[in-house]
């Protein structure tokens, strides 16, 4: 068990900020805002937060006027929006399978995207502020 924990710490430490290498599921919990963007958000919102277009679109987060509201950004990360999955820990459920981000991580990634990619909002959102917002009601049911 001790060995496993050490391995996880090593994996977290090696998670580089600007090259999205892989972080184990268990180590996701120690990623900071910038790392969360690079490892997770970037999958859809793309490098430089430029968004992408297909039959539908992923919004460009860069220079995004909606980001004036930190609650809008935090609620989106917590509960998802349209097809975007929720990342918040379901209310009244024990943490499981490391498939969620903590309130502190959500605060951190909200602060990161609101102060980068030509967004210049200075508000420093805290974990407590995120905790006070509605969280997802239940675990999602996964694939086959």
């Amino acid at each position, binding site marked *: *068990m001790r060995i*496993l924990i050490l391995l996880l710490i090593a994996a977290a430490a090696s998670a580089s900020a600007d090259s*999205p*290498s*892989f*972080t*184990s*599921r*268990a180590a*996701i919990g120690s990623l900071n805002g910038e790392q969360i963007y*690079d*490892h*997770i*958000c*970037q*999958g*859809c919102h*793309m*490098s430089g937060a430029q968004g*992408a*277009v*297909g*039959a*539908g*679109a*992923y919004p460009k987060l860069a220079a995004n006027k909606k980001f004036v509201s930190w609650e809008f950004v935090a609620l989106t990360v917590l509960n*998802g*929006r*349209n*097809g*975007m*999955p*929720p990342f918040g820990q379901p209310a009244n459920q*024990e943490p*499981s*399978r*490391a*498939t969620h981000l903590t309130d502190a991580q959500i605060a951190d990634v909200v602060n990161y995207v609101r102060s980068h990619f030509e967004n210049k909002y200075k508000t420093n959102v805290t974990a407590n502020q995120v905790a006070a917002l509605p969280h997802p*009601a*239940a*675990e*999602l*049911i*996964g*694939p*086959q």
Partner: protein
Amino acid sequence: MENGDRSNSLSRRQLLQMIGSTAGSAAMYQAMSSLGFAAESPYQGPIDLQGAPKGASVLILGAGMAGMTAAYELRSAGYKVQVLEYNGRPGGRNWTLRGGDRYTEMGGLTQQCEFDKDLYINPGPWRIPYHHHGMMHYAKRLGIALEPFLQVNYNAYIHSSQAFGGKPQRFREVKADYQGHVAELLAKATRQNSLDASVTKEDQEILLESLREWGALDKNFAYVASDAVSDRRGYEKSPGGGLSAKPIPSKPVALRDLLESGLWQGIPSGDAFDMQTALFQPAGGMGRIGEAFGRELGPLIRYNSKVIDIHQDAAGVTVTFADTVSPESKQSAHADWCLCTIPLPVLAQIPMNVGQRMAAAISAVPYAAAIKVGLQFKRRFWEEDEHIFGGITYTDLPIMNIGYPNTGFQSGGKGVLLGAYIWGLSAMQFTAMTPQERVQKVVEYGSQIHPQYHKEFDNGVAVAWHRAPFSLGCFGMWTSDTRAKHYEDLCQIDGRIALAGEHASYIGGWQEGAVTSALDAIGRLHQRAVAQGAKA
């Protein structure tokens, strides 16, 4: 004391979590199988739509399994049918990537599939359970040759990077040892009279005999190395013919090692209703079904059509679309009715005048991230060196699954396997990489199970479903909560518009969900059309 209890339960929880992360894929797999997909397909045989009003028309959005099933049946029933499809091919998520195919994901990165002739991967669905009667029906009707899909291969691996020195274990050994040890324990409990309250004396005798048979126990009800046990878990040296043919029995793994490895979580992988033998795959790739449907429907499908607006009024439904090849020119299509099978993340962004309830339902379903990576190797080493013919290896590594081809056994030349099938946060991380990085990472991880990867790797393709331009995700993820709030609103006809697709089913993520939801929706649309008479 309360305090003591709490710390005790916390450590148990931590232990279970740890097991969850060591044998992750198998555990999640099992959890998912038990989360409510075990419903028999409601497919009732060929649909019978009699008395279609003369001249009535239906516009279908999306040429995937749902859209093409509907188009096929509505055309037979006498409706005037037109289908608009975003891609330049039929099938939607029913899709096979073969050598020579090109695929451009959102963000603009293009992959050229360099597989040899006849080699392929199915980036989307890859198996059809025998009880998906709707899919079986259309495969037959379209003349699709089916091959067995080997869900369980006793000689494939269950692997944990944290157990047995990271050495993959054969499914056969894990299953035999787990079953044997559990049988021994239960026999012991029975003989120590621990079960007297729940099993009668007579039944205990039967139970003991059944445990001996089930677990390959010896005459003392012990699970120990023997010919009988080797006949389950395999021999140290297998029996043969002639001189030096005598077998050497193998030694079971100790119960403690087996329990702590977490590998037992992989044992029920073929026990879920959707995974039970027999399962099938179309010869030549899952995409054969979509392709055959496309040929069958021919000019009814207009490809490269991106829907930008859906409007209904008393006169019918008008859909505005752009040709993706020349997007400046907007065009429109009109019909009395509309069956919309557009995946919800896309549909949520298209202006459509439906009621608030359906609109809310469309926005309420997040779509799964999933990744599939196909790897071509210079030879079929999994067959030649490891005698694995088809089936799936499960691992706690981020690649989660390795799927071996269920066809072309012992053929010379190159081979393609599914190097990764990943979901959840791991899939999101792989999505954030370039396709080349994904392939490279998958080769790196997979080589921990098959060291031959390094020497034999040839080329690969990686499909990340969140970057699929036509669906923006793999499939809709419901919870019991969102089902209760939104499912009926999603499925109710709104004026002249009905929705269909796996997202409008209780067989989520399966093609059968798409087929049965389409049949259900057109049955109800038909009733409305008939009720409204000749001209809507």
